[in-house]
């Protein structure tokens, strides 16, 4: 600490000053580093040990999970669910991001808050809201009956449909921000040029605007996909018994079947999938930017 003061008052060599500075930097980082090492990396390390500790041999838990038909089905379902949710989110996010670039002043604030607020609201509360809305006697069925779209209440809850609705609702904001950021970067003069050269608005959109915003679309899609892979609360509440996800399988390994090595192996397989997505998408992604926007 005092090294900095004396160094600035009396130059005592750059090395002194530099080492004092390095010591202070290390001191500032130490609490968080210790915390993450002890409360994040160490527990994950324990889990890794556990996944390799089945009595039948080190990799037997991985082999058992990979060979199990149930496990494979559930992982394929989880992947498929993530793909569909990602596609829907990306398609819906695009016009929402577009709107954000088009409005100014008061309406910009309103639109921005519409995207920011859901980030803050508990996923559990939002999921419960959907349960109430999609219920047999809920308002959505009420509306469908009133306009004569159906003559008896539809079964909207506890199936694939309600899982899609709930997950899209929760994950949509993660797709909107990266797309919005990429739209802001588009040089308006390119659109004017395309327009001036006689291109139709359709052509300008498809050949100029859309390609220029593709990095944002890819980043948004990657975010949604990797978050969707690990989803637990929303599918557990909105899905039926057939809508199991990998996270729910891991939960049942721990809490119902008490097979820790299998749970640990399954979660590492899930983690590898997430990391693979992250690696593929690393060109487009700046995770920090989305976190800050919240």
């Amino acid at each position, binding site marked *: *600490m005092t090294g*900095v*003061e004396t160094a600035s008052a009396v130059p005592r060599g750059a090395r002194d000053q530099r080492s004092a500075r390095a010591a202070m*930097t290390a001191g*500032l*980082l130490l*609490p*968080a580093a210790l*915390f*993450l090492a002890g*409360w994040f990396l160490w*527990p*994950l390390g*324990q*889990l890794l040990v556990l996944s390799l500790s089945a009595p039948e041999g080190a990799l037997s838990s991985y082999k058992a999970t990979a060979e199990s038909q149930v496990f494979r089905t559930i992982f394929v379902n989880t992947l498929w669910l993530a793909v569909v949710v990602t596609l829907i989110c990306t398609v*819906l996010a695009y*016009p*929402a991001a*577009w*709107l954000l670039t*088009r409005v100014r002043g008061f309406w*910009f604030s309103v*639109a921005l808050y*519409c*995207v920011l*607020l859901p980030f*803050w*609201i*508990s*996923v*559990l*509360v*939002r999921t*419960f809201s959907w349960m*109430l*809305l999609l*219920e047999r006697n809920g308002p959505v069925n009420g509306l469908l009956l009133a306009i004569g779209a159906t003559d008896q209440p539809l079964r909207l809850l506890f199936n694939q449909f309600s899982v899609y609705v709930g997950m899209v*609702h929760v994950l*949509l904001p993660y797709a909107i921000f990266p797309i919005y950021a990429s739209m802001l970067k588009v040089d308006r003069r390119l*659109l*004017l040029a*395309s*327009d001036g050269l006689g291109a139709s*608005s359709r052509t300008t*959109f498809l050949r100029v605007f859309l390609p220029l915003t593709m990095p944002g679309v890819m980043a948004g899609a990657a975010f949604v996909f990797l978050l969707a892979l*690990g989803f*637990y*609360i929303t599918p557990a*509440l909105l899905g039926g018994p057939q809508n199991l996800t990998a996270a729910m399988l*891991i*939960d049942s390994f*721990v809490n119902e079947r008490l097979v820790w090595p299998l749970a640990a192996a399954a979660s590492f397989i*899930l*983690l590898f999938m997430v990391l693979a997505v*992250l690696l593929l998408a690393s060109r487009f992604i700046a*995770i*920090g930017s989305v*976190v*800050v926007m*919240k």
Partner: protein
Amino acid sequence: MSGRYQRRSILGEIAGALVLAFLVMPIFAVVPASVNSASFIKIPPEAYSVRWYGQFFGDASWVSALANSAEVAVLATVFSVVIGTSAALGIERLPSALRSIAVGLVLSPLIVPVIMISISLYYVTRSIGLYGTPVGLALSHSLLCLPFVVLNVGVSLKRLDPNLVRAAEGLGAGPWRVFRTVTFPAIVPGLVGGATFAFVTSFDEVVISIFIAGYGAKTLPVKLWEQIRVEFTPVAAVASTVILGLTMVLFVLGRRVTMKKAAAAGTEGAWR
């Protein structure tokens, strides 16, 4: 503005507005459900009443869950703000190659599937006696709170003119004095933004809490989760509305403070 292309965008704007409505409106469905006088849920209610609020606040198990949530969230916020601010100051001083590694490490709890973090902490906290304790839960929530504090403070630090720090040092101020008089006032917006989001993150957290709260530290979201897995009751709608209301208040307060400070500093404040 720019001819045909811009004029023809009205359909896109309508679609965008519909998507934003889809994003926001369903959130509030729990509110009418909570003021229904009947003992089953009906939206919109046929008759209004606040009787279920009386039930909620008269039930010791709901109230203690609310108190547990508040206690855990305060602990997690204080802890993550202190170590997160320190970490952000340290990260700012690192060479850029190390900086991205450090930021990556801080962010990684948001990337690892939360179910995996949950079972690893369940496994570990039981062996060290922190399972089912507010401290164990607060530390666990801090993993998810820390990134928001570090990044928000980091953004404020980037806006701080390094010449101000050099000037203070040149005038003979020690590191602590420089922090107190120059750095700290500059990072207050980031600190407040990070702290409010950290509080809400902990207050709302469900998955880790389901695994390690036990009976000793059962929070409001855990009790709500247990309840709505069995049946939809008006009291569950009240609990949801309480969570929703508290979050909205913090959302508005947090943005007010950060936007005012940002405006005062003459910087672009729209993002926080």
